[in-house]
């Protein structure tokens, strides 16, 4: 059922290959799953065929954030073990028809997943989708190894905290040189940055030195939309949603300008009305 992704060099028929991007961070709780859901939704909203793969076996959450928990019938391990076909297991999104979800197994463990089989699964998904986004579990153990195996691109999600930056730095090292690695700084609070109470995007990236894909502010919209199981990226009125849509455009390549780092106006700027 699952074919090896590496087509022989002599193969006459050029295979369609989507991009496999792993969303990872090392540290837990920095917003990998939210980033996966929203980036995926924003990509699919442009018409691209997107599948989100939850690689966090044992702690399935992506379906919840997507609001698709009631539709999940089969999971990754069912597919890997032949208990279900890929078509049976792929859940179609409620709002964006081009978006699919492959849920993780909740009652299994990461060690139950064979890394090579998972890599092959990603390979076969790349033949059917334009973008395969893999939601990586926290940590750098087996679950991490599985999640990155089939991906040749990575997005690092990092919050402006010492621990998150340290872990991100470690993960960048583990990803190796052969993968393209980009950065999303999540949960930035511009008012705190201005007052010298939070690391800035520049502070974070002075350490990580990665191409910046986007900056997401710590906004209530994200919490509210997650409560409802509706990706904020699909909310046309939300500024954070707009940030995710820009991230999608940068991934596709239709937006080449670097992200504008949200800036909190100082007292003086507010007084005189900055025109920026």
């Amino acid at each position: 059922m699952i074919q090896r992704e590496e087509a022989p060099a002599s193969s006459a028929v050029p295979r369609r290959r989507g991009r496999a991007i792993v969303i990872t961070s090392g540290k837990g709780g920095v917003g990998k799953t939210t980033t996966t859901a929203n980036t995926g939704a924003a990509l699919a909203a442009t018409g691209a065929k997107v599948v989100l793969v939850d690689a966090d076996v044992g702690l399935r959450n992506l379906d919840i954030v997507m609001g698709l928990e009631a539709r999940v019938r089969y999971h990754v391990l069912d597919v890997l073990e032949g208990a279900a076909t890929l078509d049976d297991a792929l859940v179609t999104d409620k709002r964006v028809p081009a978006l699919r979800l492959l849920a993780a197994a909740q009652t299994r463990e990461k060690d139950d997943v064979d890394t090579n089989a998972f890599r092959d699964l990603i390979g076969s998904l790349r033949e059917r989708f334009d973008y395969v986004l893999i939601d990586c579990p926290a940590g750098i153990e087996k679950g991490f190894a599985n999640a990155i195996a089939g991906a040749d691109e990575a997005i690092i999600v990092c919050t402006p905290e010492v621990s998150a930056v340290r872990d991100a730095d470690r993960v960048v090292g583990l990803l190796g040189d052969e993968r393209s690695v980009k950065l999303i700084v999540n949960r930035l609070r511009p008012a705190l940055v201005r007052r010298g109470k939070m690391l800035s995007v520049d502070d974070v990236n002075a350490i990580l030195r990665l191409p910046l894909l986007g900056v997401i502010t710590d906004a209530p919209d994200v919490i509210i939309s997650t409560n409802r199981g509706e990706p904020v990226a699909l909310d046309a009125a939300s500024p954070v949603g707009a940030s995710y849509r820009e991230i999608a455009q940068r991934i596709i390549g239709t937006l080449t300008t670097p992200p504008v780092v949200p800036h909190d106006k100082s007292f003086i700027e507010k007084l005189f009305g900055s025109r920026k």
Partner: protein
Amino acid sequence: MFEFIQRFFGKPTSSATAKERLRLVLLSDHLSLAPDVVEALKHDLIEVISRYVDVDASNCDVTFEQREKQVAMLANIPILGMRARPKPPAPPPPSPPSAQAVTEPTAAAAGGGRKKPVRKRRRKALSTNTAPQAT
């Protein structure tokens, strides 16, 4: 406004503290060297150099710094004077005692650090930049 006053009186902001903590923790992560190892390295370094020149051991300073793609070791070792070498390994360079004795920053790749796979862009290279001080 209170923060402004705090900054005015030189109390570092918490983000500045975070930045410094991050710098130090990553330094030790990348080098995989515990602080006592750094201290031992400094001791041995001074010992080797003092075989050739008289150094001011009490005023030696060995620090590490994150450079563009590597960690650099900076050693500032004041030289008090030249020492008559017992067995010169090569003909001694005709340099006056006050001239710079060891100036070439030599970059030697040092292994260790991150576990596999080793990332090229952050491989640790120890570049010894010994800036002697004229006596």
